[in-house]
């Protein structure tokens, strides 16, 4: 939180530096003495994990760029032959990077759902939440550019489908969309020019993300962390210093996270991948099913569930833009779902709804469920799930806050934590 200052330079040099560039003071106030609510749980460790993942992706990405060739004729071989077979440990660095993308998204989804559950987007943390949504959108773009680089069939056709979304604008102003896609491609189709610019942007974006992460942490450290109770910390008894309490806690869960991550890297490196991407890009043959990576499947399902092109694009974009408005859609004064019995249930239905959308997106366009002899086309399942997605944010969130009877909030964080430890002692 702003305003606390305990930093006293210990040596003549640090005293000298502190009056010229107070960088050690900044580090001390934000990473060591920073007062953190004493009741943060496991779900709060993903912020640290995400920072770590950004570092890993940048490190492995810079190394991969040393061996990769962004050229339509050479890109596929530079990945599958040079990096995977010839460069020392190239296979390892590539798999850390490619599985890393999935783990990065896994972590960001946990982080986002945690924020949603504990109401971390509510005043005074709206800007913090919006910056987080921007980071997520930047991540989606970065992942999309990166997925194109190996120049396999799924890279090529994924790039074609996603950039063609802009051609829907032809329905608003004739030729506008087509001009935009030609401009994006630098050609009349996805090709060499497209691959080059995607590589350039894929290298740029992580640094942009790092910048917004800096703002995100800044916006976090002004009001301070929210916590599972969703009540404001009131005094020193509610806080512990960030170091060693949360540095160690974050490090412990980071190790557990790394175990899962490395299990994928070493034992199932292609688990999240698509076999079609091991076929070199061919502009004349579309794979039978074009699917995005798992982390974008829910949005893909929404796109496909709308039979009109422009409307489909608007729905998909709207699902992302909706996230920006959450701080003002939720009308409840109580932050944490722990004290919101109705919202808690709707939240878990929403989480299941997102997974269901992801499943629909992974299936072919004409798939159907056979329920007691009746064929239920998955496109209808996706339509209902899309309806719930939007209904949850635009109807239920504003409405439930007004009618819900919330449970009584504890007096303070300290009181709640201590009461619980007394209870555990009694039980023993």
């Amino acid at each position, binding site marked *: 939180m702003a305003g606390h200052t305990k930093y006293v330079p210990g040596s003549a040099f640090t005293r000298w530096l502190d009056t010229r560039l107070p960088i050690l003071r900044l580090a001390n106030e934000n990473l060591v003495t920073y007062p953190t609510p004493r009741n943060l749980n496991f779900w709060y460790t993903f912020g640290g994990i995400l920072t770590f993942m950004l570092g890993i992706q940048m490190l492995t990405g810079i190394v991969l760029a040393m061996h990769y060739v962004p050229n339509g004729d050479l890109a596929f071989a530079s990945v599958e032959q040079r990096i995977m077979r010839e460069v020392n440990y190239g296979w390892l660095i590539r798999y850390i990077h490619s599985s890393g993308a999935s783990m990065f998204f896994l972590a960001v989804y946990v982080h986002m759902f945690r924020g949603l559950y504990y109401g971390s987007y509510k005043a005074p943390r709206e800007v913090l939440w919006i910056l987080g949504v921007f980071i997520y959108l930047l991540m989606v773009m970065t992942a999309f550019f990166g997925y194109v680089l190996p120049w396999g069939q799924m890279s090529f056709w994924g790039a074609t489908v996603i950039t063609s979304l802009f051609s829907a604008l032809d329905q608003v102003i004739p030729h506008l969309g087509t001009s935009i896609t030609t*401009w994006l491609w630098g050609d009349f*189709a996805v*090709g060499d020019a497209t691959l080059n610019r995607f590589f350039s942007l894929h290298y740029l974006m992580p640094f942009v993300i790092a910048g917004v992460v800096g703002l995100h942490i800044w916006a976090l450290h002004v009001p301070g962390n929210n916590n599972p109770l969703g009540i404001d910390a009131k005094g020193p008894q509610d806080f512990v210093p960030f170091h060693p309490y949360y540095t160690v806690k974050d490090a412990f869960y980071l190790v557990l996270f790394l175990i899962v991550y490395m299990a994928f890297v070493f034992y199932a490196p292609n688990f999240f991948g698509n076999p079609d991407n091991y076929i070199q890009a061919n502009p004349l043959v579309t794979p039978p099913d074009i699917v995005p990576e798992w982390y974008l499947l829910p949005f893909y399902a929404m796109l496909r569930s*709308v039979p009109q092109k422009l409307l489909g694009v608007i729905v998909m974009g709207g699902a992302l833009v909706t996230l920006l408005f959450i701080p003002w859609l939720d009308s409840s004064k109580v932050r944490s779902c722990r004290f919101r019995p109705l919202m808690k249930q709707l939240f878990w239905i929403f989480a299941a709804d997102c997974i269901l959308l992801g499943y629909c997106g992974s299936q072919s*366009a004409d798939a159907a469920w056979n329920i007691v002899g009746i064929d239920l086309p998955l496109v209808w399942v996706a339509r209902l799930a899309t309806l719930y997605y939007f209904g949850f944010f635009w109807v239920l969130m504003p409405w439930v806050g007004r009618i819900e009877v919330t449970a009584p909030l504890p007096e303070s964080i300290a009181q709640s934590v201590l009461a619980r430890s007394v209870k555990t002692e009694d039980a023993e």
Partner: protein
Amino acid sequence: MANAIKPDATRRDFLFVATGAAAAVGGVAAVWPFIDQMNPSSAVLAMASIEVDLSAIQAGQQVIFKWRGHPLFVRRRTPKEIAEARAVSLNDLVDRVARNANIAENAPASDENRVIKPEWLVLVGVCTHLGCTPTVSTPQSPQGSYGGWLCHCHGSDYDTAGRIRKGPAPQNLAVPPYAFTGPTKIKIG
């Protein structure tokens, strides 16, 4: 003169506004090269037309060429396929515009307006939904319900004139600019 119009405007004010305006115009002009460099380069534009020989294509067969990085469909239609396409009423079409680069932009999407010679259907093989390549329907392996093409990505169904009949695609498959340079030779682009 300036003092006559606005007594308190000085030479300094004039220079201030003029400099600001020049900087704004210059700034916008400097951005343009950075935007335009993204458009197709002259090398890409130079490769924009091809010539193909159709003599080896059998009736009922489709051959795919590559044109401007896209698949180009050339289908030699059977009399039955032509008759099917011509029997369709304009009112049954999703997109009633011919989308033929060789004729007027708002021409109706009758089968006659989709071809130069009825036997030869020349199309850009890019689904107008999100750019996948539709699969051709043949008697051996029928695709979709209209005998033309089916796009497997999102289920757009085209008829034997390449017109969209069902699914999310908003437009008929585009007919590229082309001309016959011989009885069985065409130049595209």
